[in-house]
């Protein structure tokens, strides 16, 4: 036997270095297996029959013709759900398959498994469902006075402010200081946001494989494997151990994969037929398959003194949660918590309400409530600057939040909060000079459409600042588990295998995990085992910009435990020996908000905060209402950048999504029915829509976080909608209080 294996010098891939993605090569060659690429011998195809009504009673479902069609192996309805008939991310208000009534357009009603996907589609079309339309609840301002969509008040009794009105999901207020405090000047505004879709490119899909012993393995694209399992198992009437969720390749997520889509349905079909069942939504179905960003209506009043100091902010926020609760209660609270923006304020009254309607269900999307209020609050700050005759950047600097300040909830910021530096750094990035005319039409609003030679084109420069929480809030018991198995390979070298169920959704957490392990173990040979509920505890969700912080903390803790054990054994392992330890990491505890005043009940309601500032240059053809975003410069508070290349990628991509909400992205509905469920009609930014983005990282390590990290995914999306709209108002001189802004708003709306 050779000498025991020991650690070798580390060459590559520590925390803080730009490291190439480990999955990049299989992704550029086409070999990477996404959830829609999976295959199993004898597999059937599943398909979902969905409601054509936004609100209707189900009188009868007749499957007799469908079951007799060629190739069909199963047709299932709510009668076939083996266990609990309802599930939900936070409240079990959503039927596995609709019974009694449907509450939104596209709600799942029945399932088919067949040998060919086309056979499954045809069989679904042969199911006869008799509906009786019910009164529609589609205007969020009327919802609380209309008949309840859910007779059971699911979200009541969970420590929120008591509100017995029908259809109220959550109603909250944050009251700070004297909400009637007067000041030298006051500006008021009303703002509106449409429904934004995550529009991840890889539609909902996955494969369910029965294990032959009554259990099931589900391979799926998701953001949180264990919470999927915890929702699926009771509805299948199985134990948690009998349901194993495995992470398949994820084609983007952005919040839209927090809730279940096809997981339960494919598993029901697989268990019923005893065959593997694959389900893949098409693009239209994907618009029905996940929750969206809450549309909002916001009334705001900002009061300030002549010197620019904010005195009082009053805001009323109304969010349309659609037919099911999803994460609406947390979005309602987040919208309120970040309503003022990253500014110190002594007096505030923030009222935030979310209602059930028969519109598309809404839940998590990148920015999670803070996007909506940042758009309104930053428009207010621009208005205030104009009223005061003050430079908008100067006004923001004068009110910039800093460590030691208190938020409107009374929470004192104890960690890093470099808002002033973020503003100064973003404002200092040189803005490009206006381009001369004539020029190639591709560099004019309207682009290749060749709609102008420069006549009617006006340039505008805007600025905005935004911030948001990192991690889960309000007392949620948030943790991440990681397991490290250290062993000696056949060459006598030490190898570490990491188990962590953190969902790699494209953001790069795989590299973060490997970099952390390499740094902690000082080992080159580190690999990450596939994500599964079978081998390791919960990682929590790849949401709330939390995954880098939490995975880093858990992997660090497990690595340190393994390192200590290795030292105890003399620093080496004999061939065949191994150390295998699992550790759980928790971020600092948070507590709930007092329901009537929205004030903290413990030291904090949120864990940590990250800010971003952004300057945007646009050119707008004010005759045709067409826009070209020319340039974006931004600075972001990132704590410590674990993999700087990936951080820049998050900033650029997050910026694009906020630009999309400002200028083009909206799910349109008529009486609750989605009218644009396609990429032809729901537009997302293309290569021609995105300008150059100059990004700077502001690195102030977060004292309580492992390696000083912060999350980086959401702040760019929070700030960019507001920043683009600031530039749009500067270019047009119009109020433009609704996003996405439409050409007619630019040409015809009020100034």
């Amino acid at each position, binding site marked *: 036997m050779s000498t025991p294996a020991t650690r070798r010098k580390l060459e590559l891939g520590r925390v803080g270095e730009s490291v190439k993605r480990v999955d990049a090569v299989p*992704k550029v060659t*086409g070999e990477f297996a*996404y959830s829609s690429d999976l295959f199993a011998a004898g597999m059937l195809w599943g398909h979902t029959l969905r409601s054509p009504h936004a609100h209707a009673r189900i009188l009868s479902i007749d499957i007799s013709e469908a079951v007799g069609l060629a190739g069909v192996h199963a047709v299932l309805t709510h009668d076939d759900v083996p266990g609990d008939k309802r599930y939900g991310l936070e409240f079990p208000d959503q039927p596995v398959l609709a019974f009694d009534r449907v509450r939104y357009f596209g709600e799942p009603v029945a399932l088919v498994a067949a040998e060919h996907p086309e056979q499954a589609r045809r069989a679904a079309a042969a199911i006869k469902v008799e509906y009786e339309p019910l009164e529609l609840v589609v205007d969020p301002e009327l919802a609380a006075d209309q008949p309840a969509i859910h007779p059971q008040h699911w979200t009541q009794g969970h420590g929120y402010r008591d509100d017995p009105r029908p259809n109220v999901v959550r109603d909250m207020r944050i009251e700070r200081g004297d909400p009637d405090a007067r000041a030298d000047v006051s500006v008021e505004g009303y703002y509106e946001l449409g429904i934004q879709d995550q*529009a991840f*490119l890889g539609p909902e899909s996955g494969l369910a494989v029965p294990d032959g012993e009554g259990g099931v393995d589900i391979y799926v694209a998701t953001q949180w494997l264990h919470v999927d399992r915890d929702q699926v198992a009771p509805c299948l009437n199985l134990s948690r151990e009998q349901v194993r969720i495995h992470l398949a390749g994820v084609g983007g997520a952005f919040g839209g994969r927090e809730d279940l889509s096809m997981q339960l349905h494919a598993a029901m079909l697989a268990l019923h037929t005893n065959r593997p069942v694959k389900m893949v939504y098409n693009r239209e179905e994907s618009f029905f398959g996940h929750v969206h960003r809450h549309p909002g209506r916001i009334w705001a009043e900002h009061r300030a003194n002549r010197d620019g100091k904010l005195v009082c902010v009053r805001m009323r926020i109304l969010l349309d949660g659609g037919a099911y609760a999803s994460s609406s209660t947390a979005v309602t609270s987040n919208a309120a918590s970040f309503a003022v923006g990253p500014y110190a304020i002594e007096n505030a009254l923030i009222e935030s309400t979310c209602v059930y309607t028969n519109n598309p269900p809404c839940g998590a999307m990148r920015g999670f409530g803070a996007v909506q209020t940042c758009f309104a609050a930053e428009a207010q700050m621009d208005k205030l600057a104009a009223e005061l005759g003050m430079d908008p950047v100067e006004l923001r600097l004068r009110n910039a939040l800093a460590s030691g300040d208190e938020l409107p909830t009374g929470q004192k910021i104890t960690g890093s909060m470099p808002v002033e530096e973020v503003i100064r750094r973003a404002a200092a990035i040189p803005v490009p000079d206006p381009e001369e005319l004539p020029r190639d039409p591709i560099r004019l609003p309207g682009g290749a459409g060749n709609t102008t030679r420069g006549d009617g084109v006006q340039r505008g420069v805007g600025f905005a600042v935004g911030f948001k929480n990192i991690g889960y809030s309000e007392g949620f018991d948030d943790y991440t588990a990681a397991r490290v198995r250290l062993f000696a390979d056949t060459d006598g070298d030490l190898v570490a295998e990491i188990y962590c169920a953190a969902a790699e959704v494209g953001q790069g957490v795989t590299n973060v995990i490997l970099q952390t392990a390499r740094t902690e173990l000082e080992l080159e040979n580190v690999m990450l085992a596939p994500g599964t509920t079978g081998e390791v505890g919960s990682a929590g969700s790849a949401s709330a910009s939390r995954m880098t912080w939490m995975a880093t903390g858990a992997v660090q803790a497990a690595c340190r435990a393994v390192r200590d054990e290795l030292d105890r054994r003399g620093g080496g392992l004999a061939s065949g020996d191994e150390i295998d330890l699992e550790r759980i990491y928790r971020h600092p505890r948070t507590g709930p908000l007092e329901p009537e005043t929205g004030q903290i009940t413990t030291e904090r309601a949120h864990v940590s905060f990250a800010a971003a500032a952004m300057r945007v240059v646009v050119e707008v053809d004010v005759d045709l209402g067409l826009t070209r975003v020319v340039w974006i410069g931004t600075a972001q508070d990132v704590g410590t950048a674990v993999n700087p290349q990936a951080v820049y*990628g998050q900033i650029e991509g997050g910026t694009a999504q906020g630009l999309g909400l400002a200028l083009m992205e909206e799910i349109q509905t008529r009486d609750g029915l989605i009218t644009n469920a*396609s990429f032809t009609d729901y537009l997302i930014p293309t*290569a021609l829509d995105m300008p150059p*983005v100059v990004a700077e990282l502001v690195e102030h390590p977060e004292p309580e976080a492992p390696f000083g990290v912060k999350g980086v995914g959401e702040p760019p999306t929070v700030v960019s909608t507001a920043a683009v709209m600031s530039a749009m108002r500067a270019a047009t001189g119009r109020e433009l209080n609704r996003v996405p802004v439409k050409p007619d708003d630019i040409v015809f709306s009020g100034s």
Partner: protein
Amino acid sequence: MKIELSVNGERKEADVWPGESLLFTLREKLGLPGSKNACEQGECGSCSVLLDEKLVCSCLVLTAQAQGHEIVTVEGIAEDDRLHRVQEAFVQTGAVQCGFCTPGLIVATVDLLAHRPEPSDDEIREALSGNLCRCTGYQKIFDAVRLAARA
């Protein structure tokens, strides 16, 4: 109906129905899932392949139309197990995040550089405007194309 076509230099046969798209045949019958299905109506470019050296959305081509033609998919871009310079550039620059758009963008970039070996920034943006990416904001994709053009 039986269709014969060349895929990545190999002669292939497939039994297809008349309405079957080339994308479906590639993914489900020929074991080539690299081309992605993200919209199935020619808006996103995720299914881009070369058909007789022309860039097409394979979701909009019927397999029956490809009878006797030569198809190159993302799986056929690398040469002898070595990454193509376009693939290498996407890896180096961080142009890949979730990667669902990447196969289509690799094929579209190979096509662009075949016709315009030194494209301007505007030409890059226009040439890739038929390929949607939701993760990257395109900045690093542009970096990748510039790097590949220089290589």
